[in-house]
């Protein structure tokens, strides 16, 4: 088992009231290689490998979309705010430049 690419953790507050503005925190394990680094032993360039697209769905609706580049650090972490006005699944999808797709869904159920 090497470093597990695509392991995801999403954090949401415990008690949510309807209409609250809540922070969503999401972390994914990914090397985010820039393509400019050299392998120390062979001297060859390590090919670029990074997440370039993040999409967040709340129910069926796209609520945010990010375009990431090589400037984003390894194991990227993001926070955004959401108005919890309905009970619906929150789905976050990460896509990288080698065709990898990683996703996770959490249920948001305001009282």
């Amino acid at each position, binding site marked *: 088992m090497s470093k597990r690419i695509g392991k995801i953790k999403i954090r949401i507050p415990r008690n949510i009231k309807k209409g609250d503005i809540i922070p969503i925190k*999401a972390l994914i394990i990914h090397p985010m290689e820039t393509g400019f680094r050299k392998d120390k032993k062979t001297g060859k360039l390590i090919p670029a490998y990074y997440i370039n697209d993040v999409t967040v769905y709340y129910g069926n609706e796209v609520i945010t979309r990010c375009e990431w580049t090589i400037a984003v*650090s390894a194991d990227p972490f993001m926070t955004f705010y959401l108005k919890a006005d309905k009970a619906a699944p929150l789905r976050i999808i990460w896509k990288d430049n080698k065709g990898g797709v990683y996703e996770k869904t959490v249920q948001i159920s305001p009282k």
Partner: protein
Amino acid sequence: MNRKRLALLQVLMALSVIIVITSIEFVGSVRAGSTETEIVEYTPSISPEEYERRYKEFYGDTTKQMAEEGNPGELMLEDGEELFHSVDGSKGKSCASCHGENGKDLVGAATTFPKYDPEIKGIKTVALQINMCREKRMGAKPLKYESYDQLALELYVKSLSNGMPINVSIDGPAGPFYEKGKAFYYKRQGQFNFNCAICHVKYAGYMARANLISHYRGHADHWPSYRLKWGAVGSLQRRFRGCMKNTRTKPLPYQSEEYRNLELYLTYISNGLPIQVPGFRM
């Protein structure tokens, strides 16, 4: 006349060169002698509380906030839990078959490590203990040090003692190894002729270029730790190697005798602090 003067000058120059060489050798021998025989202890520059204050002043709450929000080490912890319950080796056992479901017999076990082991006649660390267990009780291959699996398992076992104070004992047979560890801590070595104590005791809380030098107390309570510089989880011994490279000293292999003794010394001087793994640091 000129020739006489020239000869005199040559003689003088030769003499001065000899004097310089001998004096260098003399100083060198004195220096080498003093480092091997006695330990000159330093008085700590500041208290741990004062260090905390300076750290906060210089770096702010950024790392603390990052650790609370999303520590990538926590994802590794889940893998460690999975490894703990997976069967491996010729005897068809997992760690959980002896130590209980979710490691309930190991709660608090990591607080007394590193400790003396009569079988190897030396100090054993958690990493070494896991590999000894795997070889003898499970009939499995030992895990390679600093590999993902080894760190994940060590992380999980240590996390069972989270929040409990470190309680390392140096009574009895562990005593001489503690002394050896201390001697290593105070031994000047490498191209820069540094020892560990000069930075982390004498000049703790001062600046080394753009970095605040950390205080020795609390060096051993949060490993394995996620380090932003590595972009990965690593062990205390990986940090030892990094420090030794920085002072132009040849690093030693993982779990070598010197490093295990040093780990005992460092953990002992952090006694009483709660274990917090996975750590998160710069």
